[in-house]
């Protein structure tokens, strides 16, 4: 990188922070979608405690499932080998 092309550190920090924040927002949109489908009955005057518990568990278990899947995929010898992925 020549001196002229040096990235402005203030802008770089800003973009990094905003990207991080946006990644969080996107995940919350997706999780709300999934857990709404899983937990929500007919909308009423307030979120009842049963639905609240269901949503909180749904978020936690979704993250657990994603972690589990990631680990298992990484540990499968097939995926560790140099060979291209084969789904069989």
């Amino acid at each position: 990188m020549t001196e002229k092309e040096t990235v402005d550190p203030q802008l770089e920090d800003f973009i990094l922070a905003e990207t991080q924040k946006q990644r969080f927002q996107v995940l919350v949109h997706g999780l709300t979608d999934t857990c709404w489908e899983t937990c929500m009955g007919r909308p009423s005057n307030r979120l009842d405690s049963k639905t609240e518990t269901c949503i909180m568990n749904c978020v936690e278990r979704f993250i657990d499932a994603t972690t589990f899947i990631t680990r298992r995929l990484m540990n499968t010898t097939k995926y560790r080998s140099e060979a291209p992925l084969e789904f069989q």
Partner: protein
Amino acid sequence: MDSLSSGSLSGVQKEELMDQVKQQIAIANAQELLTKMSEKCFKKCIGKPGTALDSSEQKCIAMCMDRYMDAWNLVSRTYSTRIQRERNNM
């Protein structure tokens, strides 16, 4: 990118750029929320589309929007608590 090079933007221009980026992000998030709410609340409240949106359907949609916001905030809180917890365990 030229516009990201140091020295090519004044402090005021930089502030403006950052404000614009923030605004665009806010718009994108509002659009996403609008799309999801429409999809979810249409599904919950309109079983059989009639010739007009009747008052009970409107009431249901209004309530559904509020509950969707509640759910969104609860998910956001739960998720950020989880991140915090994982960070502390590292």
